[in-house]
């Protein structure tokens, strides 16, 4: 710790509130978790047969999108700045995976009422602009995201040929600068599935935008 930081830190401590309080009534914060997991490594993916509307115009389910070697389901969206930073890499990794026998499905679970940029028309435009060779679909109730336990975008789930989860997490370790990526988690996981090797890192984390879930029971 440099001297200045130590000084600021000490000043911070000295200025912290020291006044005793009257009692505060204990109260449970409302937990209301949106995700209903757990769906963890080694387990079969839920809701594989639910059909979702794709930007291509046809409805498609996870099992219909599945490749011979596995399936990549990636929760993403248009509006999120993190998703935007990674979207070029999502397109590149997804398109490459498709060529190697991995089915790919990009899923938007956000309620477009919260973000106009996440509307179906905007999704069509984005998929075209990015050159997605895979379906970009609408999870119109957010139930697929809930069943997966997905919380934010982008968040990737890679399934093996049997539909079991082998990788869950982020795209890589540097949203901002692709050139500075040290660990290309998703690319390496796809590589491992295609070549039949063990996944280097099966669970990773990266920051992202909270999924704006549709109200429960919405259609």
């Amino acid at each position, binding site marked *: 710790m440099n*001297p200045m*930081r130590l000084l600021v830190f000490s000043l*911070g401590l000295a200025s912290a509130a020291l006044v*005793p309080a009257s009692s505060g009534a*204990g109260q449970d914060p409302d937990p209301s978790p949106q995700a209903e997991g757990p769906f963890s490594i080694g387990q079969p993916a839920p809701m594989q047969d639910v059909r979702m509307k794709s930007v291509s115009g046809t409805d498609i389910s996870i099992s219909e999108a599945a490749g011979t070697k596995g399936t990549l389901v990636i929760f993403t969206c248009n509006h999120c*700045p993190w998703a935007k930073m990674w979207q070029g890499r999502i397109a590149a990794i997804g398109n490459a995976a498709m060529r190697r026998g991995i089915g790919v499905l990009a899923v938007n679970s956000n309620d477009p009422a919260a973000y106009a940029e996440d509307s179906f028309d905007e999704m069509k435009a984005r998929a075209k602009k990015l050159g997605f060779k895979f379906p970009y679909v609408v999870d119109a109730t957010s139930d697929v995201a809930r069943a997966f336990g997905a*919380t934010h975008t982008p*968040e990737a789930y890679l399934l093996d040929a049997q539909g079991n989860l082998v990788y869950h997490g982020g795209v890589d370790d540097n949203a901002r600068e692709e050139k500075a990526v040290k660990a290309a988690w998703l690319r390496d996981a796809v590589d491992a599935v295609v070549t039949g090797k063990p996944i280097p890192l099966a669970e990773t984390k*990266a920051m992202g935008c*909270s999924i704006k879930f549709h109200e429960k029971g919405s259609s």
Partner: protein
Amino acid sequence: MGMASTRRFASLLIVLVLAGCARHDAERAQVSGGAGPPIQPVTAQEILARVRAPGARATLVNVWATWCAPCREEFPGLLSVARGRARDGLRVMLISADFEDQLPAVRTFLAARAVSDTAYLKTGDEMQFINTLSPEWSGALPATFVYDGGGRLVAFWEGMADEARFQGAVDQAIAAIHSQGDARP
């Protein structure tokens, strides 16, 4: 040069070096040059050290970013609780997950909301940052952690919260230390 003057010179040198460091850090922190709180880079370990430091009866840590809509939306409720409970010993740490070159935007945002206490900028490895604060945290923003006066995590959630939720968690944290009978001054 005598012993005494050598010592004086050495002291002067230390003072000058410290002043230099201070100026350097201050310049780094005052990117926009305008109003707004000082902003310090911070790792998750440093956040936890601060949380465990005495001097507060509860600490609320909120990780947010200027480009995160729900983060911006929940800010008024968060600040209302922060201000209302400061005299009860609530310490609040606002941790921006913006990139370093976005410091001016962070400062402008905080200045517009009259935040004057030191705020923080996430630094270091991101996955480590997330897991150190909580293995339960997926990385979704905003994320809120509420600790009691002993530094124990009493509430954590990710996603947007309203004022009542912040208030309830803070009340619970303050009550937690009370119930253990070791309330801090």
